[in-house]
């Protein structure tokens, strides 16, 4: 037995949430060639299958690009601290891609392993994610290569699987999901299905192993030559979570804010002395791949990448992780013997 719902039913659900003053977000068309996850102003704005993957990711709703941690006001000799208001509003994400939703558990680990980030957790609890299984893919998608699939359920409260002509099968995964769709669906025996995901582009395990041996390989320099050092890949990536804390103020007071940062910028590792351990773009790009396929997996036993392909689509220079990982795999295959000694070099 399966539960189904029609597109009209979904729009009606959105209307309800908006009516109750809750926030609803989903892919909307921002201009002629850009679709982004944004707060919906009306139910009609939702664009369920307008593109393979929106330009940004769901990360924005749990870790905003700019977040005020607290405000300080100078009063004569002393300083008054004003905490940011807690309790962010409840928010429903509708039509999120499975690879975006899968990133949320990863972010949960990061924001809770050594320091429990209250601001993040409050936003996370207030979130309900209804993902939509992918029916379309492009040459940038490689979720299958990192162990996901077009109908992966990780991180989603409920998964909509298209049945055709605006009918969707609802697969609730969490109590939140059930509560959401309770009484809204019509039972049926039709099972939704989606075509298989993209062919595996590389063997994540092998790449993870090869990385340590390729640290000084020329492949990094060649791949990074075309990289212009912007932050589009990191900021479009659902799992990239680095941030920078900055005080913005003046004599009378100011705020402490947490803003997105990216390891692709030289400023990220610039020392006060002016020395920069990661001077060239190659070392920075290598760091990004290392963090995703070696450093993070070593600790959390999962990849810091859900294969959504945003870094490939958003890269103004036409690069992205895919071409780097496939290049490493070929370079590794070409020189397997040298694996041992090379690893030792600093």
């Amino acid at each position, binding site marked *: 037995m399966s539960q189904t719902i029609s597109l009209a039913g979904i729009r009606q659900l959105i209307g309800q949430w908006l009516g109750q003053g809750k926030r609803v977000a989903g892919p909307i068309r921002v201009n002629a060639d850009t679709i982004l996850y944004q707060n919906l102003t009306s139910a009609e704005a939702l664009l369920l299958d307008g593109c393979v993957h929106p330009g940004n990711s769901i990360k924005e709703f749990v870790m905003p690009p700019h977040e005020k941690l607290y405000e300080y006001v*100078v009063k*004569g*000799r002393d300083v008054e601290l004003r905490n940011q208001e807690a309790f962010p509003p409840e928010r429903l994400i509708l039509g999120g891609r499975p690879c975006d939703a899968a990133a949320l558990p990863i972010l949960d680990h990061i924001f809770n392993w050594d320091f429990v980030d209250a601001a993040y957790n409050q936003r996370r609890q207030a979130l309900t994610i209804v993902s939509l299984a992918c029916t379309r893919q492009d040459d940038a998608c490689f979720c299958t290569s990192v162990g996901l699939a077009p109908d992966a359920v990780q991180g989603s409260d409920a998964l909509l699987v298209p049945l055709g002509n605006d009918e969707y099968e609802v697969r609730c995964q969490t109590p939140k999901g059930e509560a959401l769709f309770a009484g809204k669906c019509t039972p049926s025996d039709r099972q939704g299905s989606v075509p298989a995901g993209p062919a595996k582009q590389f063997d994540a395990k092998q790449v993870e192993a090869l990385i340590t041996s390729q640290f000084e390989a020329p492949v990094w320099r060649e791949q990074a030559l075309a990289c212009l050092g912007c932050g589009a890949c990191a900021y479009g990536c659902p799992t990239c979570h680095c941030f920078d804390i900055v005080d913005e103020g*003046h*004599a*009378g007071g100011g705020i402490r804010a947490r803003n997105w940062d990216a390891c692709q910028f030289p400023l990220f590792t610039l020392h006060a002395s*002016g020395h920069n351990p990661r001077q060239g773009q190659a070392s920075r790009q290598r760091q990004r791949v290392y963090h995703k396929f070696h450093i993070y997996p070593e600790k959390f036993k999962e990849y810091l990448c859900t294969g959504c392909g945003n870094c490939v689509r958003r890269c103004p220079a036409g690069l992205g992780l895919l071409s780097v990982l496939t290049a490493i795999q070929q370079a590794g295959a070409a020189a397997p013997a040298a694996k041992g000694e090379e690893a030792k070099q600093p």
Partner: protein
Amino acid sequence: MSRIGVFVCWCGENIARTVDVVQVAEASLQFPGVKHAAHYKYMCSEPGQSLIRDKILADRLDGIVVASCSPHMHLKTFRGAAQAAGLNPYLVEIANIREHCSWVHQDKAKATAKAIDLVRMAVAKVRRNNALQAIKVPVTKRALIIGAGVAGIQAALDIADAGYEVVLVEREPSVGGKMAGLSETFPTMDCSQCILTPRMVDVGQHPRIKLYTCAEVESVDGYVGNFKATIRQKARFVDIKKCTGCGECWNACPQKKIASEFDYGMGNRRAIYIPFPQAVPARPAIDKQACLKLKKGVCGICAKKCAAGAINYADQDQLLEEPIGAIIVATGYQLYQISAQQPTAELSGYGEYGYGQYKDVIDALQFERLVSASGPTGGVIQRPSDGKEPKHVVFISCVGSRDNAKGISYCSKICCMYTAKHTMLYKHKVHDGQAHVFYMDIRSGGKNYDEFVRRAIEQDHARYYRGRVSKITEENGKLIVRGADTLAGTPVTIEADLVVLASAMRPATGSDDLARKLRIGYDQNGFLSESHPKLRPVETNSAGILICGACHAPKDIPESVAQASAAAGKVLVMFSHKEMQRDPEIAKINESTCSACFACVRTCPYQAAEKADVRDRAGNLVKRTARINQGLCMGCGTCVAVCPSKSADLEGFSDQQIYAMVESLL
């Protein structure tokens, strides 16, 4: 910086009447970094300043804000007071709560609120001031003086007599300039050669004056105190060390009919010549255009005649370099010509006077040569056309001057005086002659000047007509001068034997090129621009470069000499210190972040921003950058605004200071 002292001035009651100074002092205690606040009736007075000095010492203050009048009034005063107490003077700022607040806002509440804001801004600024030291620039104690007329000579003698070396560069074969060609000079009628020649001899023999004649300044690099002047010693074809000045050569030279520049064409000279008998150096020069040997390889008599073997036909121009600390420009003037061809498009000639075709229409300097004893006619006044003695001479004032239609709007200042002198000289030489003068106004403002003109009219019976000459035509040897006598209300026609034009004074040819070489300004008439018309008349906008004499504006000999001594005085001030002190509120560039786009180099009006290379110890190029020459920068800050990466900053008005002031207004 967290020990700032705020001192609010009452200014008697100029401030206190509309600004609650007590409230301002109390409010300023709340500003971050303020350690002490006080108010006093007269901060600029001695007790007021001692209040500041004592507080600095007592509370170890490290920044001072004085809320008082305009910084243009007392910033120096309060910086001096701080320095006296051992605090760096550049850690003092002023909040202008008088001219910008108490005097212009009557509402006490608003005025006080504004005064508090102004003090808050000043405190925000002073917290980011740096302790600056005056910039020391080494000074080469040698002066370069360009032009050896009376002004150049005076300046050279003053500086040389003060014990410093002088390089004097003169374009002509001899020093002396225009004054050497004059007959007698107003208002005392003493002969110009008698008063000038001794000075010329002094210049020629002075141990500390290195004289270059037949030479021009080719280029000047470097900056105040550290110029490098390249001088072009033009080929003279006579070795002045060997030559004894015996005159055998120029007496034997067959080329006799060359128009003498010194006599402005009234007389002739030879191909090898000294411009005038009292020339210094009294050594001849060969005119390349006229000498048959140099042009066609024939003759060579002068070499044969020369016992000292000083003639050298193979002489070439040489470029010589001189290290220089300060430069004085004294290039003098030339007279405006009424011909149809004019040097610049703005000027136009005098078609009314036949564009100068009539032989007996001459200009003032030519008349000077006529009456001069050492002139071509030995002082006998004769018509250039037929040599007869003129019985009626018409002098026309303001030829070119004060005449926008001819492109010269200014008055040339000295023509009224020398025209009166000319009528006297003419009367003394031709007792039955009659001088007629057409004038617009008589401008004789100097000492004993007007009495001099009255004497020309009353004793020597010069006939003055107030009116312009409309046309000069030549009828069978006579010059028909038609004008008007506006006082009598009738037209006047005079059949004159000779007409002398008191033409306008213009800067010497090439003075605008020289100005470009020295990067100093010049006005639309080509006269060199002074730094400030009243307060700095002999300085220019380029540090270390001074101007004096007629190259700056028309002026007479007494003024030129006075300016020459003034310019020399300024140079001596510079040379009196081991190093030159310069205001440290100038620009600086962060060479590690500069991206070498050189927008600042293009922008800097003083060429202070230069391109420079950053090299490592092994000498290979690390990067290119812009760098500020501390000797030239005047602190305008245009480079700071044009620098995209904000690598340029300006001490005293740095980004940190200005942004802190603006942000303190939130």
